[in-house]
């Protein structure tokens, strides 16, 4: 005579719910056999590289942002990608900034201090006058070649100095393109860090500034940098 455990008892043993050695019974050994195999090491490796590749792609499409806070030129927001800063905006509110980013970049930005906090801190310090230059990677992939050339040329204008649309056009080897240069600067996605505000009209007036309060903001930025202005 063999003593037999009731089925519930053997199942809890098998599940590890009660102490003791799991006892075999037909159902549990059939399940054990069915689930004995899994993906091989090679299959796990290849799945892992597919995941890494998919995550890289997802990461490059993601944008993170942070508020710079109330500054001398009003509220400012900054967004970064996995490569660097993609946008600085004089937006009235967080909602307005997020909406504008979605419209321009087709991405849903996530507020993240770990990702965008450093850019936000440097901008805050710059606008408070306690920092004179930026040390941040920039992501210029969304710009046209021409706009990139113009904005990188503007970035070479030293703090406290200004140039004109015409001079900048000559500097990039496109002397007839002052108007196009103005356009490219006007659509600068990363103002302040890429200092389009240092480029003025050839007659010495401030020209334009596509931001809150337009040229008044431009004048405030130039004054902050100690530029000598003829007008404004």
């Amino acid at each position, binding site marked *: 005579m063999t003593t037999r455990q009731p*089925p519930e008892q053997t*199942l809890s043993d*098998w599940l590890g719910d009660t102490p003791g050695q799991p006892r075999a*019974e037909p159902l549990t050994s*059939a*399940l054990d056999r069915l689930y004995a195999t899994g993906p091989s090491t090679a299959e796990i490796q290849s799945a892992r590289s597919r995941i890494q590749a998919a995550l890289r792609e997802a990461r490059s499409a993601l944008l993170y942002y942070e508020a710079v806070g109330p500054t001398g030129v009003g509220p400012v927001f900054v967004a970064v990608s996995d490569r660097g800063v993609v946008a600085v905006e004089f937006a009235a509110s967080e909602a307005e900034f997020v909406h504008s980013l979605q419209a321009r970049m087709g991405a849903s930005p996530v507020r993240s201090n770990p990702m965008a906090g450093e850019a936000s801190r440097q901008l805050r310090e710059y606008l408070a006058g306690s920092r004179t230059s930026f040390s941040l990677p920039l992501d210029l992939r969304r710009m046209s070649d021409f706009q990139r050339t113009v904005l990188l040329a503007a970035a070479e204008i030293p703090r406290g100095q200004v140039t004109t649309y015409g001079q900048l056009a000559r500097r990039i080897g496109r002397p007839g393109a002052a108007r196009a240069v103005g356009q490219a600067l006007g659509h600068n996605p990363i103002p302040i860090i890429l200092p389009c505000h240092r480029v003025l009209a050839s007659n010495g007036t401030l020209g334009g500034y596509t931001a809150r309060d337009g040229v008044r903001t431009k004048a405030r930025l130039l004054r902050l940098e100690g530029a000598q202005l003829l007008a404004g």
Partner: protein
Amino acid sequence: MVDRYSGEIFGYLWRFFQGRPEAEDCLQETFLRAFRAYPRTPDLRNPRAWLYRIATNTARSHWARGTRQLARTADLDARLPSPASSVPDLVDHRQRLRAVAAAVEALPPRQRAALLMRKYQELDYAAIADALECTEAAARANVYQALKKLRLQLALTPETEQTS
């Protein structure tokens, strides 16, 4: 997180789907979902259970989409006992394994998930409850319901086994 958990989660999805293509699709989707949800997940006490939750939800929605196929014979043959068994034994085993595979696939996905997590992924009931977004008692009930249904469906009780 990918390095640490992808192999284990792959094993889970592999068992859930009884085979590779869907398991791998779900695996990738699980980690993409986790990546997107991560910035909005403030307090991650148990990342392992959290990944199981995402994997289970992903697997269940794939399952509901009905893109699955029944486990292939070739896949099942790989799980048969060693070739030393006699031919009638092998046929018997194969039939039984196929019956078990079909019975498991007929289980409600939630119960199947609970059973797999408990027995083959070695999660405790607290983690299973976390993954299934239910109480520990409900997690336990899901496991037992799964086993009860399997036993009913397969009539694999110790009694019938002995008399057959």
